[in-house]
């Protein structure tokens, strides 16, 4: 038995053990035991992933009682990378959950579902054929639906969120199933090896590509299939949101990479354009919605849509450039998608766990009622700050490195003779730049409103830091954000080499060199230089501070006096107000202004009421009519069933006649 096989077995055994512990253990011990089990399961997944990534081979065949092919698990290096991401995120979230769970999220079913969810997610990238893939996928989807439903007794909106999630995730399953069916029919086999022999130019291959990409994009939260994300993430317990956002949606990205790198490597140009279009629209739409969101977890959910959009953009650029024979930048673009995956996993775990700590401490997700948490929750504030820097792609975090590499691959991809590419690439650069700018604003808002200034509500004023396990998990994930930002070269080089791409090598201490496009970045040296210029500033400040220390006064200048109440501060809504006005056409906020005049006067106003509501345009325009249509069809279909046994007998009789007629034809 090879090491990889041991690792796969270990995951199965650990998952089974965790589920049994969750069900059997006393409630007082359950969180600790099941949490350790789930964390071990995550670690096992990550270790197996590392083994597969470094060339480890292994093949686990599990015969099923059903009359189908046995389940075959044999992770490729690409799958190994995603196993590492899923396992690491799962382990951190499980440790966090030990201290975080309370009420329904501490129940036996919730812990059992978490272990099942982690197992399913870690096995998806290990699957070597379509049937195993779909089984693992469904395990992941079903368990995560149970997890989203955790708090359905406490909050009514959870039920509707879970319904949306279940429908969308099964739509995704159906599309992927259809896509694999088309490929399997063309390739005469359900194994990925057989499928990769299909003719890339045939119409059925293109059909399979479209179906698969639509299916994976639905899971990845790409616009316009993103509607489940901003509902499911706020509904689920925070550790689950972290895993769903940082790891589960990546399985959609894994699926697309599986298609474009392994199954159908000879992509057509329009495939790249399709991916690019999905990516650009999602990136801009996602961050735009995030920048005006006031619910912290909803904001993070939309930011996930943005980040996954950037990954699709990178993959699409890679496919497009490769089909035009621009090899260097194409490889960098595809490798950048992997960098984006790793960096998003790190910072989004930090952010969701940080949002969980805020929720744990205050019971609030609404930014408009938070404020001043930095003083009361220093660990959460510091780690959330690091995560926010990562999401805003500022140096020296992983987000910055990934976005820098993405821009480099884009600006070097276009050549004058490829007119299409020469038009597409500037648009892509502009989109990346706009998303980077809006992400900056979004995360300054999220951090500044929640953690700085004065508490806007009583809950924020009495907040307190969570238990030690929560803080440990937060610190670990924040260290990953900075670590991947400071020394990205080692990880990036190992990963791109393992999956058979080139174009990235180690530069400087452990920076990123892109020889294919002639660019390099060494974050360690950049940090060193920054420290060198900062030291004199620090010394001067320190000497000035020693001579005249600063003095706190109640509202130094007050900007209007000492009578101001904390509710007069800028809130998240007012912070995003200029932006929502600028992007009025895209966001379409509903505004309602009601003025009551005093008596007969036209000039004296008694009361002014202003209401503004921001809804997801895509949801309102596309999904609400579709749901209404389905409802109407359902109501019409109800007329068929009126409870009369005579009528049902007549139906069977008609059906029988119809079958007989069809058979006789």
């Amino acid at each position, binding site marked *: 038995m090879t090491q990889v096989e041991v690792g796969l077995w270990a995951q199965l055994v650990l998952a089974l053990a965790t589920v049994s512990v969750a069900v059997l253990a006393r409630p007082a011990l359950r969180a600790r035991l099941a949490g350790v089990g789930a964390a071990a399961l995550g670690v096992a997944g990550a270790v197996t992933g590392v083994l597969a990534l470094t060339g480890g081979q292994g093949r686990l065949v599990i015969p099923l009682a059903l009359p189908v092919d046995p389940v075959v698990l044999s992770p490729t290096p690409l799958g190994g990378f995603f196993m590492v991401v899923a396992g690491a995120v799962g382990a951190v979230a499980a440790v966090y959950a030990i201290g975080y769970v309370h009420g329904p999220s501490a129940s036996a079913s919730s812990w059992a579902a978490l272990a099942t969810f982690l197992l399913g997610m870690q096995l998806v990238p290990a699957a070597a054929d379509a049937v195993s893939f779909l089984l693992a996928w469904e395990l992941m989807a079903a368990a995560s639906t149970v997890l989203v439903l955790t708090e359905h007794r406490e909050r009514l909106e959870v039920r509707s969120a879970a319904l949306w999630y279940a429908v969308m995730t099964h739509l995704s399953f159906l599309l992927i199933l259809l896509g694999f069916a088309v490929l399997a029919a063309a390739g005469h086999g359900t194994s990925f090896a057989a499928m990769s022999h299909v003719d890339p130019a045939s119409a059925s291959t293109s059909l399979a590509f479209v179906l698969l990409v639509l299916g994976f994009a639905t899971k990845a939260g790409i616009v316009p299939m993103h509607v489940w994300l901003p509902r499911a993430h706020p509904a689920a317990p925070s550790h689950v949101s972290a895993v769903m956002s940082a790891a589960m949606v990546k399985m959609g990205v894994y699926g697309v990479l599986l298609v474009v790198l392994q199954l159908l490597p000879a992509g057509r140009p329009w495939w790249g354009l399709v991916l690019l279009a999905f990516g650009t629209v999602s990136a801009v739409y996602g961050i735009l919605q995030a920048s005006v969101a006031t619910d912290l977890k909803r904001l993070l959910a939309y930011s996930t849509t943005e980040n996954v959009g950037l990954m699709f953009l990178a993959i699409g650029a890679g496919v497009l450039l490769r089909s035009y024979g621009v090899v260097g930048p194409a490889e960098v673009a595809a490798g950048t998608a992997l960098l984006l995956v790793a960096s998003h996993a790190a910072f989004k775990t930090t952010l969701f766990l940080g949002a969980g700590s805020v929720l744990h401490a205050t019971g609030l997700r609404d930014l408009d009622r938070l404020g001043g948490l930095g003083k009361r929750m220093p660990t959460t504030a510091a780690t959330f700050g690091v995560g926010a820097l990562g999401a805003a792609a500022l140096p020296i975090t992983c987000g910055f490195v990934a976005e820098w590499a993405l821009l480099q691959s884009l600006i070097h991809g276009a050549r004058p003779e490829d007119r299409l590419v020469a038009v597409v690439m500037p648009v892509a650069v502009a989109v990346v730049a706009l998303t980077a700018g809006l992400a900056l604003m979004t995360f300054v808002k999220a951090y*500044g409103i929640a953690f700085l200034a004065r508490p806007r509500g009583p809950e924020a004023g009495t907040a307190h830091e969570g238990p030690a396990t929560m803080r440990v998990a937060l610190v670990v994930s924040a260290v990953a954000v900075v670590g991947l930002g400071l020394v990205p070269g080692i990880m990036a080089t190992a990963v791109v080499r393992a999956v058979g791409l080139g174009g990235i090598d180690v530069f400087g201490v452990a920076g990123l060199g892109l020889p294919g496009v002639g660019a390099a970045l060494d974050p360690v040296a950049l940090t060193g230089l920054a420290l060198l210029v900062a030291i004199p500033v620090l010394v001067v400040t320190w000497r000035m501070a020693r001579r005249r220390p600063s003095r706190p006064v109640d509202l130094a200048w007050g900007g209007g006096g000492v009578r101001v109440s904390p509710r007069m501060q800028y809130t998240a809504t007012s912070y995003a107000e200029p932006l929502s006005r600028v992007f009025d056409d895209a966001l379409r906020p509903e505004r309602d202004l009601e003025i009551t005049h005093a008596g007969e006067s036209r000039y004296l106003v008694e009361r002014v009421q202003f209401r503004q509501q921001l809804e997801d345009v895509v949801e309102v325009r596309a999904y609400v009519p579709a749901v209404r249509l389905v409802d109407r069809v359902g109501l019409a279909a109800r007329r068929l069933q009126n409870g009369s046994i005579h009528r049902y007998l007549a139906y069977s009789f008609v059906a029988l006649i119809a079958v007989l007629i069809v058979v006789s034809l």
Partner: protein
Amino acid sequence: MNGGAAALAVVQVVVMLVVSPLLVGLMRQTRARLEGRVGAGVLQPWRDLRKLAAKETLRASGTGWVSAAGPLVLVASGLLACALVPLVGAVPFVSVPDDLFVVVSVLLVGTVALALVGLDAGTAFGGMGSSRHMTIAALVEPTVLVAVYALSIPVGSSALSRIVLARIDDPASVASPVSLLALVALAIAVVAETGRLPVDNPSTHLELTMIHEAMVIESSGRDLGWLELGSWLRLGALLGLLGSLLVPWGVAQDAGVAAVLVGVVTLVLKLAVLGCVLAAAEVFVAKLRLFRVPELLAGSFVLAFLAVTASYLVVQAG
């Protein structure tokens, strides 16, 4: 780290530290004279800094480390930008390439620090300034990066020193339509980024139109001094960058003493001329309404985008 580059970086940082307050003083003086006032003199920013350094620093109670660290981060980011951008000489570090994307990100760190300082005190004005500041920063970003893209195409690299050196070698490329479009776009972006008219009025006393001033309204003493110096350094670095791109001559190509001296002198001249032009232009324009600013920025984005597409089409025609 190579010695020549390090020496040049030190020279650039020191020169910019000395010159950028003077640049602001010169701009204020130019404006005062054109408006028929006597003006406070070119040295006034330095006197202000000395005064602020000696004053007691008051902070609103409830503010945390952000109010203390934010001004320092702003200054450090400005200084780092001064060290990276080819102002006096175009000799890049081996391990820290003067990639324009990196420079933009370094400046953005300062932008974010300033915005957080604005929010920290918890007053309405600080939040208002911070919100407007970030909105403009978000909208400027596409223009800056696409303009960088346009400038990088002829050279095949986004490293600033290589762009500047290529311009010295081929002076005709400075006046090419592509380069001019990109530079105009970049200039508008710089005006927006440094809070000059018509985007923000640096000498405003009307709170409702403030952007930069609203953010620093709660700061005092050395905090305010650092914030002012940080913004002046940004202005100096960005104007200096425009100068190096527009008039690349005089930029030292090695770290020899004579070349560096020429570089320093030409840098000071370029900054003085650009500062006077900008100040003179500011006399004739009024501040735009905040919600008209996006239109200006969209215009500059279109210019940058045209520059990129034109550079591919022009090469194809040629």
